[in-house]
């Protein structure tokens, strides 16, 4: 008994009292600095991405206003370009559904597709609509603009005609203006929030709990990758979840040669975020890849960060082999679309199982005793 007692006491003392006499100077900590990673995310990726996006949404708003004032082919072309620029830029912020973006459900307002064309037409003809209602998610944002700018007719004259039509032309112009104003307004709200306080709140909340920034953003990130990128942009049109391909469910259905480009931009953004790469591309700074390396996370004797990057690259190669119109790809050769999906899918396992386990990311605030 004495032996037991002494062993027990010494182990416990070692375990607990040992904690109090160690130096805790943060500069000397040989640990991964989660706060530095958060700061890199906020200062070099998220805020620059939103700033850029906000510039594009402002141009979009201005182009929309100009088109409303003078409905000409020239202004339509400018507006279409502004739309494409903004939609491209959106792909780089969509994954950051945290803070105001989450509160205001910006992603739902901006990019639920397919657009509900019937309800959209109804909105235009009745002029009684409230775009801030969740029931109108699928009648606004980029998919609605895609339809108005590229789907209303066959050739350019049809569009000018539609927007100058004596009965509904003005309604259409006003609706379009409301859409671009709303996008710009919500974007400004999100950006302003990041710039006025949320940045510090985000960076300082560097703990390890379901409500801490790393846990939340990584959960959001994986959710985005799985649900919006993998499923929304590729899996759903390819019929992965329904059993039959549905070309009409692609992103940017109406603007030609555009949706594969959007998908590739989104994939780059996801991979760059994983690597902590600055938004301007100038530096590969501290990100999840470094965090995993610091924890020496390996799988089959390969660094997990490398496996994930390789898999992103494999997915990119598969997507680059697809038609520039993914809807056409689904119609012509859905097998290739499904192969691209499979490449995206393989990374879900690495991100959601291997990475989440290594980083000890909490999914939800709940009591746990480690199962």
């Amino acid at each position: 008994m004495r032996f037991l007692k002494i062993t027990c006491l010494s182990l416990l003392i070692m375990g607990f009292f040992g904690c109090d006499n160690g130096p805790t100077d943060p500069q000397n900590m040989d640990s991964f600095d989660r706060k530095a990673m958060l700061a890199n995310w906020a200062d070099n990726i998220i805020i620059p991405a939103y700033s850029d996006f906000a510039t594009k949404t402002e141009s979009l708003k201005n182009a929309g206003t100009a088109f409303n004032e003078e409905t000409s082919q020239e202004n339509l072309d400018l507006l279409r370009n502004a739309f494409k620029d903004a939609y491209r830029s959106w792909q780089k912020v969509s994954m950051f559904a945290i803070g105001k973006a989450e509160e205001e459900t910006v992603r739902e307002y901006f990019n639920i597709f397919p657009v509900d064309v019937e309800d959209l037409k109804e909105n235009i003809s009745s002029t009684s609509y409230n775009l801030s209602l969740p029931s109108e998610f699928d009648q606004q944002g980029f998919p609605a603009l895609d339809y108005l700018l590229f789907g209303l007719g066959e050739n350019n004259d049809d569009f000018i005609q539609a927007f100058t039509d004596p009965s509904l032309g003005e309604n259409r112009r006003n609706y379009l203006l409301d859409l671009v104003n709303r996008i710009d307004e919500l974007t400004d709200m999100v950006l302003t929030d990041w710039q006025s306080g949320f940045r510090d709140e985000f960076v300082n909340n560097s703990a390890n709990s379901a409500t801490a920034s790393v846990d939340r953003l990584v959960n959001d990130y994986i959710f985005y990758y799985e649900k919006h990128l993998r499923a929304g942009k590729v899996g759903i049109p390819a019929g992965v979840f329904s059993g039959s391909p549905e070309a009409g469910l692609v992103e940017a259905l109406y603007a030609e040669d555009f949706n594969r480009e959007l998908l590739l931009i989104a994939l780059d953004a996801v991979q760059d975020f994983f690597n902590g790469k600055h938004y301007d591309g100038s530096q590969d700074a501290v990100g999840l890849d470094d965090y995993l390396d610091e924890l020496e996370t390996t799988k089959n004797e390969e660094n997990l960060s490398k496996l994930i990057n390789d898999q992103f690259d494999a997915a990119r190669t598969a997507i680059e082999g697809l038609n520039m119109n993914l809807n056409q790809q689904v119609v012509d050769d859905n097998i290739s679309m499904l192969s691209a999906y499979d490449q995206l899918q393989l990374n879900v396992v690495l991100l959601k199982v291997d990475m989440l386990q290594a980083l000890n990311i909490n999914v939800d605030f709940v009591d746990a005793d480690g199962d």
Partner: protein
Amino acid sequence: MSPFTQIQTYVQKHVEAAPLAVFRILFGILMFLSLVRFGLNGWIDKFYIQPDFHFSYLGFEWVKPIGVYTYLIFLVCGISSLMVAMGYKYRFAIITFFLSFTYIELMDKSTYLNHYYFISILSFLMIFLPANVYFSLDAYQNEKLRFHRVPAWTVDAIKLLLSIVYFYAGIAKLNSDWLLHAMPLKIWLTAKYDIPFIGGLLQKEWVHYAFSWAGLAYDLFIPFLLWNKKTRYIAFVFVVLFHVMTAILFPIGMFPFIMIFAATIFLGVDLHRGVLKGLGNFLDIHQNLFMNRKKWGLQNHGFARKSLLILSLFFLIQLLVPLRFLLYPGELFWTEEGFRFSWRVMLMEKAGYANFKVVDGKNGRRFYVDNSRFLTPFQEKQMAAQADFILEYAHFLEEYYENEGVEDAQIYVESFAALNGRGSQVFVDPNRDLTQIKRSLKARDWIVPFDDKIIGF
């Protein structure tokens, strides 16, 4: 003395009732606070009302949340816990508590925690204990129910249960992951870098090992140190230190405090008398009223002599259930056959991913399931790493899609799981149609064997 007379002497031995009364009061109050906390966190809604689908324990599929009325179950449970604390209509109150609390825990196994199970069986045990004969409203109002002394076994029963919990928790840590790899503490502690003062230390490997070994020693030896009159006070200091530490490090809610207060039952009776004296002065109920030198015996018990038999069986089951894993082949941490109800606490960091494929047996159409349509993120996480959840969910999908017009739905799963820092590997056999497998306690031959070895329990 023959063993029989020894037992007889033991059964007839009496001790003061004060420790049992203090235990009852603390138990009732802590349960009430736990339930209030659960409600205030919004968890009743989140775990029992919002989800469309609930994971059931085998044989308890009929226990389901009852919509908004689920709040009533919690209310009943809360009121009964206060009645237990007051010792008011105690037998009725503790039975109500046991039933309502257990019902809550059976509603969805996603929220399974060892300590909820502990509360369930502890409250069951308390049904048979005379916890209301001293310093309770029942005994205050009715002189006949007032007893100064109770059989020693009634206090020892609680001590025994606590000892079983600790000891088995210790045994469960005797494995190579825990001892030789400091897993999963290495993962968990490293992530706690932001904890003031010790966050830096938690990054060091020797600290992970120290915590693993200290935790093991604590669990194995603390019951003996608490039973021993010479060491019980120093042991109690360790109980406090240990559980405060776990409260700081891990999201385990009220459990550390419940264990700290429960352990007071091991301490000297002077302390309990002192506590009740203080409480008595405050409430203007004098403890002397209960010090009537009367001894409570089984003849005073509502359930008469059956109590001892029931409790003997109860403890036999408690000793055997944690060992049932021995009946199963395969790695326990991987298959989790015999994992629950066995005081296996903080042993695994396990993550999984499960992608379900529905195949129409008639026309061969196949598609994948979006799990978020049916499960909350928390449920999905629990489901993906535990095979019995995967099977139950697959059966739910079969029913759902057959109602949706899929004929003869076959369900396959592409699943991966990762355990204690290892890379992910395939979990459930992707070629088995899960609709053809019945839920049962039989060994799960449809799990792909674990490709590593964990030595020990």
